[in-house]
């Protein structure tokens, strides 16, 4: 058995959070090793040439939430990150009409006015209100969650800080904030808009990656979570990375390498080495062992604590909480290589409407019914589908004249009803997506060259996302902020000394945001400093004693 050299920090998992974590630590002068199970970096933010000539953002497919401070600190543009704008959302409606919102306010306003003058007015107001909410929540996303059970002044100050900020909001903003934290996306939108399709397509971002329906309380928050996106300071702007989302991970990896981090792929972890309550290293499946002062895990709690660590090393209540942590994957992905562009009945021919997101969310009832199917263990007979065709904006990802189309599909419950299993359902699931699309773009069936279907089970097997949850755990109120991932351990630390969490399962959660990786790195460095101080103090005391 070979034994690797000693590191300051070993990061488990080369996803965007693991890499961000590593980059920050390396830049602080730590000797960092990143270990990635797969042959490529990026985790769920990965580009792969699934069919020759066709490059897909296999899982995560758009970028918006990536924290600006990370882009700055790690100088990602210099490392090859280029964000291309994704303009607008196109929602076809079965009655032959459509709703097409773009970044151009005037256009969008006129478009919405076609459906309802009142809503056109409200839309502006709504945008402003949401921005105010985002400004309120943003610093909270950037802070280490407080620990409400202690009387430690620093923790109480954090709570006070939030309280004060809340007090500082205008009465209307307070009202909106409270509602956003507690209401369902549709109940919230009902107060602003009357056009069904507008509410439906907007509420969609309230359910992405959750096992909730658009009418389930708590989804208004997820709506906000997706509004938090910021590109060049513009809220709610979404984009592609040139070369696919993998390019983001690669840029971060470059930044890490430049700072001296060592990154190894094809290095699956078998276990985390723990000696009397202290993490000292990791053992790979091939038996190799690596040692470090600190182990930072970017994989989800189930893998970290239930797979890589022996039960007896962990307190019972903590294990109970980890087992209780909800994943409940609810979405799948269908990546399609196209010979030509889809032709929508309601707006025939190619055009700018294909360059943005295409959302199959024609009505609130459609969305809620899709959820009802999932509640009882079936994939939605008519699912919500979020489609993008990156090759229109970034020709480099497909052969000339051909296209790649990415379909995010919800609901696809990880746990199917008894008698069904995903390996047998995969094909039916994929075909159902095509059939759904065909209702809006009949030519779809004739232009498909090839397709890749990813069920929640595939997401778990291929990408290590337990139960196929794309956020490493549901974004439900009881799993947010100081409750994420489990009560008492929301500050990136774990019951095991020197073992940290830095993935999406920690505050502030999922999406290509990088915030967990960064915050965890800062906490690790803070702890390192204090231990250093303690050591030097001990030395000093010893010297004095002499």
């Amino acid at each position, binding site marked *: 058995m070979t034994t690797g050299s000693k590191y300051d920090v070993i990061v488990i998992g080369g996803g965007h959070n693991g890499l961000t974590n590593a980059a920050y630590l390396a830049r602080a002068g730590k000797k960092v090793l990143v270990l990635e199970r797969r042959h490529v970096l990026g985790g769920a933010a990965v580009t792969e040439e699934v069919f020759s000539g066709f490059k897909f953002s296999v899982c995560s497919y758009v970028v918006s939430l990536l924290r600006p401070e990370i882009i700055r600190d790690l100088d990602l543009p210099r490392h090859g990150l280029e964000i291309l704008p994704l303009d607008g959302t196109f929602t076809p409606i079965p009655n032959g009409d459509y709703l097409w919102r773009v970044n151009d306010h005037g256009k969008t306003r006129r478009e919405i006015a076609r459906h309802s003058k009142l809503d056109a007015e409200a839309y502006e107001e709504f945008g402003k209100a949401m921005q105010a909410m985002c400004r309120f929540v943003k610093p909270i996303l950037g802070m280490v969650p407080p620990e*409400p*059970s202690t*009387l430690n002044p620093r923790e109480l100050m954090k709570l006070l800080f939030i309280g004060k900020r*809340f*007090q500082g909001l205008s*009465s*209307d903003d*307070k*009202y909106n904030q*409270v*509602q956003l*934290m*507690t*209401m369902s996306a549709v*109940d919230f939108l*009902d*107060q602003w808009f009357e056009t069904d399709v507008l509410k439906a397509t907007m509420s969609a971002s309230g359910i992405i990656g959750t096992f*909730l329906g658009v*009418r*389930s*309380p*708590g989804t208004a928050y997820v709506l906000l979570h997706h509004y938090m996106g910021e590109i060049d300071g513009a809220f709610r702007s979404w984009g592609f990375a040139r070369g696919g989302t993998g390019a983001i991970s690669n840029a971060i990896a470059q930044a890490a390498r430049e700072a001296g981090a060592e990154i190894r792929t094809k290095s699956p972890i078998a276990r985390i080495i723990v000696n009397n309550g202290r993490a000292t290293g990791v053992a790979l499946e091939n038996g190799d062992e690596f040692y470090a002062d600190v182990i930072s895990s970017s994989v989800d709690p189930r893998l970290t604590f239930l797979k890589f660590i022996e039960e007896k090393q962990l307190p019972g*209540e903590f294990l109970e909480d980890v087992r*209780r942590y*909800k994943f409940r994957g609810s979405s799948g992905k269908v990546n399609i290589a196209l010979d030509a562009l889809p032709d929508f009945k309601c707006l025939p021919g190619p055009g700018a409407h294909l360059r943005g997101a295409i959302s199959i969310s024609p009505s609130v*009832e459609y969305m*809620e019914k899709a959820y*009802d199917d999932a*509640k*009882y263990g079936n994939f939605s007979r008519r699912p919500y589908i979020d489609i993008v065709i990156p090759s229109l904006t970034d020709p480099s990802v497909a052969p000339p004249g051909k296209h790649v189309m990415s379909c995010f599909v919800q609901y696809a419950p990880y746990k199917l009803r008894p008698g069904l299993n995903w390996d047998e359902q995969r094909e039916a699931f994929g075909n159902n997506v095509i059939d759904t699309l065909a209702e809006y773009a009949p030519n779809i069936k004739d232009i498909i060259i090839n397709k890749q279907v990813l069920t929640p089970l595939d997401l778990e097997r291929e990408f290590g996302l337990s139960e196929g949850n794309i956020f490493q755990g549901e974004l*439900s*109120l*009881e799993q947010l902020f*100081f*409750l994420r991932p489990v*009560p*008492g351990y929301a500050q990136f630390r774990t019951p095991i000394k020197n073992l940290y969490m830095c993935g999406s399962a920690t505050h502030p959660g999922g999406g290509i945001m990088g915030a967990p990786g960064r915050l965890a790195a800062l906490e690790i460095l803070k702890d390192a400093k204090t231990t250093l101080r303690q050591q030097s103090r001990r030395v000093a005391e010893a010297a004095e004693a002499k």
Partner: protein
Amino acid sequence: MAETRDVVVIGGGHNGLVTAFYLAKAGFRPLVLERRSQTGGAAITEEFHPGFRCSTLAHSAGPLLPEIVSDMQLERHGLKLIQPEVAVTALSQEGRALVLYTDVKRTTEEMRKFSANDAEKYSEFQQSLEKIGKVIGQVLKQTPPDIDDPNRSDLWGMLTTGRALRKLGKKDMYRVLRWGPMAVADLVAEFFETELLRATVVARGIFGTALGPWSAGSSMVLLIRAAGDPHPAGSGNFAMGGLGSVTQAMTAAAKAAGVDIRTDAQVQQIQIKDGAATGVVLKNGDELSAKFVISNADPQRTLLKLVDPIHLTPDFVLKLQHFRMPGTVAKMNLALSGLPKFTALNGATNLLHGRIHIGPEIDYMERAFDESKYGNFSQQPYLEVTIPSLTDPALAPAGKHVMSIYMQYAPFKLKSGNWESRRDALGNTVVKTLAEYAPNLPELIEDGQIITPQDLEDTYGLTGGHIFHGELALDQFFTMRPLLDWARYRTPIKNLYLCGSGTHPGAGLTGGSGFNAAREIAKIAKII
């Protein structure tokens, strides 16, 4: 010349009576104006068929705040509370019965028949509810703080709550924080494995709401109810003579304390001068001027109907219009020629003394909810049934019985048709469902009273047919009930106050809202 009073209370429901009583104690001489010919609001007993009397709407109390029971000396004023040994009997479709006794020990024994794990977990759950319930109970008795500039008592309230929370210890404290926003279906799954037990406990998180067991936030509803009664599924809190005798005792107590009560006196409008309430106008044209007008009616009825909106800012009106009151409950009362035979109970009538739960599985209840989302009433509804004549034979002729049934879900807004045309269909669905558990029920029915959500609004003044004067949801609790900035029983109209279930704490027949409102109003009145 208009009659002049210091305090006028609009509506003689239990909260209105409680508020009037405490204000009388505080030295005022309140006049309660009740639209109907008897006080009681939703807690009334009526003869719906010759010789058959029954709690028309509410058939089980919250329970009432102990303070109210003792301060108003309700026993002395004729109230006899009944708490049967059997709290809830839940029936399964396979003909099994799960009996939850008021006594935890006994319930634990019963649970062993189903699952050793559940028997053990049951008392743990009950104890946790008791501990947490105490803290929440404190909050329910507080006036929600003024967020913008909290006064001394607000800060004190927050402080004591904070301390009480810490006293719970890490585990239970986190439970409060974590459970609140959770779906009650998830909560019960953390403790129990027996489906029938799960389904019985979740009922407490969804009763009277537009939530299903899988709706986030339904656990909060259960916790709030646990504050008054830590029994996981809730006890049977009945009254001799039906729940009407609760409000009759309150009426007597209020009168004894110096409250005047006028029935058949429907308030048509609240008079307002320079942004201050000056009195009310009755339907018959009578005018009453008053220093303080207090409304027991729901917030929308009070501020959007009785008040002319020109006195309110458009913004406030808009927000109040958005206060959600989607009624989901219907009520049915049956006059029976005999006691129905429930297959699962083979004759053990004592098991029928409590509340009978029909809703064998969580998915069954969720499916019932699903239909209501699309504007249809449940074809396989969740039912809460009582047979009060078993514990109080005087309610029906000798040998005969009355059955009181809550049916959920019956959405106030139907997708097609109106409730008048669906009334019988609703009744048939309820009877058909019950007959699956008590096959001989249909032939015992002498007469029935079907109360649709529309009736709840038209006859009993519950806007939207919502029995709690507004949806119980995270966004309408505490400082947000009915609206943020207006959760302190005050309204934008000077001298006009709210004291009904549409204010904190709302939820159920506890008298909490009236109790808090009286305290606040007395405080303000003293200053003026």
